[in-house]
């Protein structure tokens, strides 16, 4: 884990200062998470250098809370939303600040598939990982959703440790490609 963190940390170092400022200025419209965002922001700032800034979207507020806390403990900066439309709005207003979007697939208003498409349109370099509780495996995903480019896929429920590994591997892949 430490080695992977160092790789990612290097990749993100040029964005750190901006991310820090953006994170402090972040205005999260999601009332459920607003208080939690504020508290965890302080926690993050106490721990020093963040790994990367993530946008998490899931219409289940319990899942969002758990993921947000767990990933923040692993040194990620996290903005979290239960409303995908608000998440997209937040993303578009500050796309360059985000390194990766982690989204549920089946959400009303705007599905994870649609969100992924819009995120890639706005900022092709941002990585997208989709997650679902349903029986669609990674290998089947491209057949089911051929027009949507995603960088990873996870099956819920997933532990924070495994999710962190997945996120780091997707971010590290970008680093390797750049080299």
């Amino acid at each position, binding site marked *: 884990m430490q080695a992977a963190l160092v790789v990612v940390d290097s990749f993100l170092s040029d964005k750190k200062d901006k991310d820090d400022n953006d994170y402090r200025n972040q205005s999260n419209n999601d009332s459920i998470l607003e208080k939690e965002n504020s508290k965890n922001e302080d926690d993050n700032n106490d721990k020093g250098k963040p790994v990367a800034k993530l946008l998490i979207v899931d*219409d289940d507020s319990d899942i969002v809370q758990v993921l947000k806390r767990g990933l923040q403990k692993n040194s990620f900066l996290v903005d979290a939303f239960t409303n995908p439309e608000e998440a997209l709005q937040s993303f578009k207003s500050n796309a360059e600040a985000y390194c990766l979007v982690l989204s549920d*697939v*089946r*959400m*009303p*208003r*705007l*599905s994870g*598939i*649609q969100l992924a*498409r819009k995120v890639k349109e706005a900022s092709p370099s941002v990585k997208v990982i989709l997650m679902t*509780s*349903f*029986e669609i495996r990674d290998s089947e995903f491209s057949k*089911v*959703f051929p027009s949507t480019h995603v960088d990873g896929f996870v099956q819920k429920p997933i532990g924070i440790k495994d999710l962190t590994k997945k996120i780091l591997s997707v971010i590290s892949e970008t680093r390797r490609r750049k080299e």
Partner: protein
Amino acid sequence: MRIESENNESIMKWFDEEVRDGENSIIIYPNLQTFRQIYTKYVKDQLSKEDENNSKRNEPSLPRIMLIATFYETTDSVKHHLSAAGLQNIQSLINNGSLVIVDAFSSYYPNVDGMKKLVASLSDRARKEGRDGVTAIVDMGFFFLFGGDGRATELINYEASLAPKTEGGNVKGFSCYHGGNYDTLKDDQKKELAQRQKKVFEVTESTTTS
């Protein structure tokens, strides 16, 4: 027709009296919690009604087949919520074919007619087993998964294909829309959805505070 989500009795009355066998209708629900309340209350009421009827008969009959096809929760989650609502015999209802719980995605993908085939097969089985019929509570979230006007057209065509059966129909169909999805449709698309005399029932969030 609009009813607040806390008005369970009115919602069930609508299920029982406004929609008859052979008809298809549209339900718009405000959130997943309300959708859960609707299917849970329906299953409970239907089973207690069957128990009541059977106690009056010499030969008990099997209940209507109840199909619950969800999109925003897993089949295990449906079972969990039914059990949590006090239905202790979920697995036996599933085993004897009275309750069918499916992921709507698997019936709509890759061909949207898959759901119609499933309902038709349940309708045939209900007849063979001497049941009153089938109630199909189906979430339409699948049609909103990919987005785009093409999908809305496909949805409208699909709803139009669910023609009422005036004779011999034994299926009560409820196409259930999450309000967040329904609101993404244009006004003319909403009108087209309700064609063929479909009844539209909107469950709104309660305005009263507890």
